[in-house]
């Protein structure tokens, strides 16, 4: 097909069957049920439920929906059809790295030897699983440039919490209890200050400079003997690499502090720059962002941390150790040889099957891993250069894996970032991140990721250009977007002010 053919956004929009679906409680009718056990077939004495359950016996029936099996299946299938996912189309949600999840990851995670393994199985029964975890730790250490790893944290925010606990334990072990502050740049994800506060630190906010990055002078001014460390995201939330990172880390180290790096944006620098090499002491990975494990409705996630030698003694247990044997190495979970450990931060060993997927992804790329970042950065810069002719790029110059636009090109037309985002739904794309980062007015943050083809990225750009033309021709039209979505503008304000979260609330409201 000719590359010259102009993309017509309306061709993307499908008008297939749309099934309305009530709440499952509204489908309920007394007496309906999924299946009936034929009592006549039972050859057992009936159980006296009241006597068997004692105090646990409930007098009133639970108010559960009474529906048939096909009704349950259809209910959830229909709801799933309202969904938009990375398997449906482009998902350019900046700062989230919504890359495609290769299906081979799923195949590996479903191997019975992994999927059906019991977490209480003794070490000698799960050598393969322990080997995978050990090797994944080694791979993450290689990518981070740091010597030790813990896979235990359940997700990025818990990785932050655990990493900061390591920093606190490090200072306390040195007998230094005066360090009560953590420096956090104003562009950081909200989880950064939250993790610091949760750890009992007070947060010192660092303003970003005019180019959106952190300046060594600002860090030097904030640094003193009460500062336990600095939390930084690199590349930062604006999608810009912190070029002064080495000097910044040096300033913190000279002042006796440690540097935590939020690895949310690792997708831009895989195999290109190693945090351990530019001075980071501890960092987490978001395996669901960087290593293509699914973003699954709040979980399960994975937030492994890598640390420098100073912080290694404090890592959670169990640690996984490898001992060379006569025929093959032996792997074991070690609890009792790390007296300074924080202890456990998560049951068992984190979300194991998520790590099977991350390991598969890393092994699939192997030494080609840097190409992930090359293509992610190329795609983002293509969007920046092409869309920058119509929309206004918040910070000039090359970006990394994501690009932030502000609303200055359409605000004067009476159109908001929300309108642009909503209209994009009509063109068959998930909207980008909006109104974040907070220090950009009407921010629109696009992260195409490396998994999108040039054609797909061009289609996205054409849709965005078409929306800008619509904004110029008829701003009112955009206030009513989306036109074709199943649900149009939901009343987010009322949902937040007067939330109805249960069926009982709904019924009584």
């Amino acid at each position, binding site marked *: 097909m000719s590359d010259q053919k102009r993309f017509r956004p309306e061709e993307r929009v499908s008008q297939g069957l749309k099934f309305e679906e009530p709440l499952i409680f509204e489908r309920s009718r007394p007496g309906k049920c999924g299946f009936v056990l034929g009592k006549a077939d039972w050859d057992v004495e009936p159980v006296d439920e009241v006597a068997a359950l004692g105090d646990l016996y409930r007098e009133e029936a639970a108010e559960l929906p009474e529906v048939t099996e096909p009704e349950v299946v259809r209910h959830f299938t229909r709801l799933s059809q309202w969904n938009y996912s990375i398997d449906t189309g482009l998902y350019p949600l900046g700062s989230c790295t919504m890359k495609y999840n290769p299906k081979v990851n799923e195949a590996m995670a479903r191997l019975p030897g992994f999927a059906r393994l019991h977490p209480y199985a003794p070490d000698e029964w799960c050598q393969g699983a322990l080997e995978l975890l050990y090797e994944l730790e080694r791979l993450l250490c290689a990518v981070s440039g740091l010597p030790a790893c813990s896979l235990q944290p359940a997700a990025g925010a818990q990785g932050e919490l655990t990493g900061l606990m390591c920093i606190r334990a490090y200072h306390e072990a040195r007998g230094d209890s005066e360090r009560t502050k953590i420096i956090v740049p104003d562009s950081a994800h*909200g989880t950064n200050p939250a993790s610091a506060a949760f750890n009992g630190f007070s947060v010192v906010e660092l303003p970003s400079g005019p180019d959106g990055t952190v300046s060594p002078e600002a860090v030097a001014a904030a640094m003193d003997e009460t500062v336990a460390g600095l939390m930084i995201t690199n590349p930062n939330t604006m999608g810009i690499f912190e070029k002064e990172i080495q000097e910044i880390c040096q300033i913190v180290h000279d002042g006796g502090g440690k540097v935590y790096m939020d690895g949310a944006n690792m997708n831009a620098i895989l195999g290109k720059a190693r945090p351990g090499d530019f001075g980071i002491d501890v960092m987490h990975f978001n395996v669901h962002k960087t290593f293509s494990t699914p973003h699954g409705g709040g979980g399960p996630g994975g937030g492994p941390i890598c640390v420098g030698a100073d912080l290694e003694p404090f890592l959670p247990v169990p640690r996984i150790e490898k001992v060379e044997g006569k025929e093959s190495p032996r792997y074991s979970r070690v609890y009792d040889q790390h007296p300074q450990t924080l202890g456990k931060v998560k049951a068992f060993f984190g979300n194991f099957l998520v790590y099977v997927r991350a390991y598969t992804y890393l092994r699939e790329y192997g030494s080609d891993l840097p190409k992930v970042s090359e293509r992610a950065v190329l795609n983002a810069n293509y969007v920046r250069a092409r869309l920058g002719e119509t929309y206004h790029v918040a910070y000039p110059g090359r970006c990394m894996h994501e690009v932030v636009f502000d609303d200055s090109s359409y605000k004067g037309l009476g159109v908001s970032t929300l309108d642009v985002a909503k209209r994009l739904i009509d063109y068959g794309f998930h909207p980008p991140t909006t*109104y974040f980062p*907070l220090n950009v007015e009407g921010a629109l943050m696009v992260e195409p990721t490396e998994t999108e083809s040039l054609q797909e990225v061009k289609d996205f750009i054409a849709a965005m250009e078409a929306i800008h033309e619509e904004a110029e021709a008829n701003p009112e039209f955009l206030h009513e977007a989306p036109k074709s979505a199943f649900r149009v503008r939901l009343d987010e*304000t009322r949902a*937040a002010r007067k939330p109805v979260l249960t069926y009982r609330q709904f019924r009584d409201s």
Partner: protein
Amino acid sequence: MKIPEEYRFSKDHEWARDEGDGTVTVGISHHAQDALGDIVFVELPAVGDEVEREQEFGVVESVKTVSDLYAPVSGEVVAINEELEDAPELVNDSPYEGGWIVKIAMSAPGELEELMDAEGYDEFLSGGD
């Protein structure tokens, strides 16, 4: 919306109105509520809390974002706008009157003079932040 003449403003977009008895009423400016969008929740301090100038004393949550509230002056909280608990939209509808947030008994009344007046705030807004 016209910026009220007798109000004083901080660079964090809080206003303070001198009540003439050593207390000020504090809220957020029309510009701030407009930038935040529909406000869905205001976390208020307790009466009796000590607040310090430029330190956070509460939180305002909108459909777009969550922001800290910074005290324009130091002192003690002597009243809070309890109506905001059920009707946070007052901050949007009436930022300078019904949407007031707290009253503070000033511990350093001179701080009030250091805030911008209406004209200064207007200039501050047109200069961008």
